């Protein structure tokens, strides 16, 4: 551009820098056809002048002659030219030319540009990954629903009870009288078995709906029609059904016209009238539903009495969704609902029993049910906090880098200012540069976010659909733009302001690497902040990682490897005759036992390990029966203990004869329950009283050791075991132990189960280990992300420290050179460098430990087996950080120790 390469004689003198800056700024103003000759002449003259008058005077003459050579006015591409251009063309043109120039500047310094882009990319990527997770879980609109943000869940509660539910007539009355609502509907869950002709029944989640359900949600049919409000009232035909596309796929061939087809639901025949479009699966992301029937279908589906369903004192309607009219706020709609409740309560004595006590609350936005929200918020809050911290750290790094660059370029800046560039213009130019850098950082960041997303891919939280990686949509792009804005301002504003405030005279006089005290304080401060933030995250990550390890290290008291279970729901309507049930149980045991690779099989009531348990009462005597102990109860077949490698610590396990129920009911206790009931474990032969409602006399025949069967908890289960079958035992769970890890075994077992229970839906057997994984998903995701984030944070902080120490060492090279010249050895110099870093690290560690204390109290409730103040985690994190910091200082220290005093002093 200036028609020549680097200074031939500018081998490093401080003043020649002034010449270089001046040349870069003024050069473009020279006439193109003469530029080369003028600059060449000036070099030649400068040499003569410096021989004659000295370097300083020569420089002054050089500048004077250079400025004097600008003829024909200042052209575009120079400061006054730009000013005039901008005045004429408007500020947009000026900004555009700044952008062009900034791109040129950044391309001239590719290394710096790449470092900054990658640094910012790591931070933006980490924050983006958190945002992507939130986006995938919460922000993506519900499939098939029009404007889910404009609708709300309605919760009816009494003074002390939440979500109490209301009666059908009250729901009708509210729907008829509310004037600010576009619609209101109830939807209540029923688990059903559904089958089409020639297809095995499946477990399907169904909603019985009343009101403007599909209208207010804006659901469209992909075939047929949907249930209108008029089809859901008390007098309507219950036997019509709307199904999801997913259910249609699983029950019918793709070519079938399903409209008008029959669907068997819990033994009643329904006619399919429509299929929902757009993947609609209800209003709760974590609970997708595939079948919708009118409210009155509740009666045949659950075998309840029609009178109960529409009775005024029933509270069968629990879940509500409503949409305020356009322009009506949620608050106004809520106020109207409450006024309406009071009016209805006063007007009608029948409603009056409880209506006036009711209170309606609107939970705006359909996505996750209101009940789940309190669980989601804190976890995502912690992640968001971590993401913001990781975003802040590289901002400090980049601010530092830009600051150093601004210092180096201050000669150039001084010339710019001398030529009339205002403070605002110089700051603007610097900000545009940092925006460009942040933009390229954001591009890198999207890639980093994708990588981080992969570490939690496939995890499912709180029953929400599994997170399948990071995907870019407009929300993520909007986030990236905000991140660019924030990082550009955070990292660029300070250097921009400092750049703009340079004193041109002073800078020209000593445009060297002279560092002022205030700026180096600023850089040290930023480095301290970075170290503090990364230490905070590191402690949090370590605490959570240890929590997860501690949880997995808990002894469940049973064998998990090769153990699967499958729960078979037998329907709630017509339970099979007891004879048929016995055949079913026998078949399940025999057929599964015959599967190749199966070592053992047993049955138990309810859902099996790590899926919850039924509870019953137990008391030690009829006198204490008034205050029985309410404990988890498992009805199990003989062989269940052996299958899971549970050995009785006293007494015996169950025998086949126990199921015959001759004599007293045999019961087996866990050690902790025995201890709670009797204060000791030698209790075999003692009498207890057990039962779900009425207590029955039973004899303790055995005690087993500590087990954790419902979840991995600190305290072992207090549980009791009774012989299978129980009177009330739907579903029945088949527990299977497989000889070796055979990936095909679950599929083979499923086939056997299907053959044994042809009338019922059969799920794929699930490994117990994966159930535990599901239970610990939240802690695991938090731990994994926090560990990744803190790793990133430490790396970035180390990079920042390196920059500060290296820059500081360069600034002190003259001092070091003199020290070496007068006899200091390399170790001494290295120690000096390390000492400057040690102060920063020490201050950062102190602040960081305080921050870590704050963070760990925040996550305290999620910790397990490790105290929020765990000294080992704190010390370990600080030690790790110190080690990384030492590494970061090693390079500049070595460079300082190897300084050649002669060259250094000559240069200075």
């Amino acid at each position, binding site marked *: 551009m200036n*028609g*020549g*390469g*680097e*200074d*031939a*004689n500018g081998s490093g003198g401080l003043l020649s820098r002034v010449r270089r800056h001046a040349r870069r700024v003024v050069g473009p103003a*020279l*006439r193109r056809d*003469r530029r*080369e*000759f*003028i*600059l*060449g*002449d*000036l*070099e*030649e*003259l400068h*040499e*003569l002048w410096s021989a004659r008058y000295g370097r300083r005077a020569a420089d002054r*003459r050089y500048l*004077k*002659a*250079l*400025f*004097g*050579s*600008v*003829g024909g006015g200042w052209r575009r591409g120079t400061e006054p030219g730009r000013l005039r251009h901008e005045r004429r063309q408007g500020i947009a043109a000026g900004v555009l030319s700044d952008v062009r120039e900034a791109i040129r500047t950044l391309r001239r310094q590719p290394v710096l540009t790449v470092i900054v882009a990658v640094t910012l990319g790591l931070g933006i990527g980490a924050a983006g990954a958190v945002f992507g997770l939130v986006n995938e879980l919460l922000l993506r609109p519900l499939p098939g629903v029009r404007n889910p943000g404009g609708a709300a869940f309605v919760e009816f509660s009494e003074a002390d009870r939440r979500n109490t539910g209301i009666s059908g007539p009250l729901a009708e009355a509210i729907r008829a009288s509310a004037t600010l609502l576009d619609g209101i509907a109830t939807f209540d869950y029923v688990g059903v078995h559904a089958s089409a002709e020639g297809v095995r029944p499946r477990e399907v989640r169904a909603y019985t709906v009343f009101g403007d359900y599909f209208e207010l949600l804006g659901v469209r049919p992909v075939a047929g029609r949907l249930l209108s409000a008029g089809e859901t009232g008390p007098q309507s035909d219950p036997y019509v059904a709307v199904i999801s596309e997913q259910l249609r796929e699983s029950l019918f061939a793709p070519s079938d016209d399903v409209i008008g087809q029959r669907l068997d639901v819990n033994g009643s025949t329904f006619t399919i009238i429509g299929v929902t479009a757009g993947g609609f699966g209800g209003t709760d992301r974590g609970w997708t539903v595939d079948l919708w029937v009118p409210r009155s279908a509740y009666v045949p589906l659950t075998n309840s009495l029609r009178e109960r369903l529409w009775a005024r004192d029933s509270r069968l309607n629990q879940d509500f969704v409503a949409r305020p009219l356009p322009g009506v706020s949620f608050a106004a709609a809520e106020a109207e609902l409450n006024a309406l409740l009071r009016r209805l309560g006063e007007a009608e004595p029948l409603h009056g029993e409880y209506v006036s006590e009711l209170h309606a609350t609107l939970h705006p936005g359909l996505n996750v049910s209101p009940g789940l929200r309190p669980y989601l918020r804190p976890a995502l809050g912690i992640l968001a906090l971590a993401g913001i911290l990781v975003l802040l750290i590289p901002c400090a790094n980049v601010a530092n880098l830009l600051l150093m660059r601004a210092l180096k370029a201050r000669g150039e800046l001084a010339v710019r200012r001398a030529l009339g560039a205002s403070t605002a213009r110089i700051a603007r130019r610097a900000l545009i540069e940092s925006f460009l850098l942040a933009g390229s950082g954001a591009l890198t960041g999207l890639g980093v976010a994708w990588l981080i997303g992969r570490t939690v891919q496939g995890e499912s939280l709180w029953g929400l659909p599994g997170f399948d990686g990071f995907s870019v949509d407009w929300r993520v792009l909007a986030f990236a733009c905000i991140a660019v804005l924030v990082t550009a301002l955070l990292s660029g504003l300070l250097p921009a302001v400092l750049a703009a405030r340079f004193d041109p005279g002073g800078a020209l006089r000593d445009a060297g690497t002279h560092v002022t005290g205030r700026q180096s304080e600023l850089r040290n401060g930023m480095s301290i902040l970075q170290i503090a933030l990364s230490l905070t995250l590191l402690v949090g990550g370590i605490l959570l990682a240890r929590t997860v390890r501690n949880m997995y290290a808990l002894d469940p008291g049973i064998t998990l490897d090769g153990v699967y279970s499958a729960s078979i729901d037998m329907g709630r309507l017509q339970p099979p005759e007891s004879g048929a049930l016995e055949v079913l149980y026998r078949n399940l045991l025999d057929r599964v036992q015959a599967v190749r690779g199966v070592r053992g099989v047993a049955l138990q009531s309810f859902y099996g390990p790590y899926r919850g348990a039924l509870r019953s009462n137990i008391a030690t005597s009829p006198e204490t029966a008034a205050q029985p102990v309410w404990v988890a109860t498992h009805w199990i077949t003989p062989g269940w203990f052996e299958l899971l490698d549970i050995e009785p610590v006293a007494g015996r396990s169950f025998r086949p004869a126990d199921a015959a129920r001759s004599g007293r009911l045999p019961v087996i206790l866990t050690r902790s329950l025995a201890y709670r009931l009797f204060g000791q474990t030698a209790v075999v032969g003692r009498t207890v009283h057990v039962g779900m409602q009425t207590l029955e006399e039973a004899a303790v025949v055995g005690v087993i050791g500590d087990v954790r069967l419902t979840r991995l908890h600190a305290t072992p289960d207090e549980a009791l075991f009774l012989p299978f079958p129980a009177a009330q035992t739907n579903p029945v769970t088949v527990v299977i132990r497989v000889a070796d890890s055979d990936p095909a075994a679950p599929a083979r077992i499923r086939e056997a189960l299907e053959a044994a229970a042809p009338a019922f839906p059969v799920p794929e057997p699930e490994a117990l280990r994966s159930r535990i994984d599901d239970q610990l998903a939240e802690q695991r995701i938090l731990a994994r992300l926090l560990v990744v984030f803190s790793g990133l944070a430490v790396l970035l902080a180390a990079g920042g420290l390196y920059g500060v120490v290296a820059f500081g060492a360069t600034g002190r090279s003259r001092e070091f050179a003199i020290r070496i010249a007068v006899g200091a050895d390399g170790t001494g110099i290295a120690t000096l460098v390390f000492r400057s870093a040690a102060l920063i690290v020490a201050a950062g560690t102190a602040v960081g430990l305080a921050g870590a204390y704050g963070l760990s109290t925040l996550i305290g409730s999620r910790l397990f087996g490790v105290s929020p103040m765990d000294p080992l985690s704190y010390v370990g994190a600080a030690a790790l950080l110190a080690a990384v910091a030492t590494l970061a200082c090693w390079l500049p220290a070595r460079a300082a120790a190897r300084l050649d005093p002669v060259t250094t002093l000559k240069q200075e």
Partner: protein
Amino acid sequence: MAIGELEQVILLALAALKGEAHGAAIAQELEDRLQRCVAPGALYTVLDRLEGKGFVESWIGESTPSRGGRRRKVYRLCPAGARAMREWYAGIRDLAEGAFPVLDVIAEGAS
């Protein structure tokens, strides 16, 4: 044809430099003889004008390390330039011959 003051000194400097010189040499000559700093940009503007009048001719010379690898532009005084200078100075000399006695009288009378 009138010749501007800066044009004159540049042509004279060029003559003093044996009729052939590049920008830096001319600037140096002017500085040495007249203690006058002429910015190279201004110098070239004048030289271009002189070239337009046919007084000097120029070509692009070789580059040297002392110029940071940049090429030089070399000017040579043309016969037309030399003639014009000669005529111009002849006129000046005639004018001065008549003027000097008067200048002497005034100068001495004033002092």
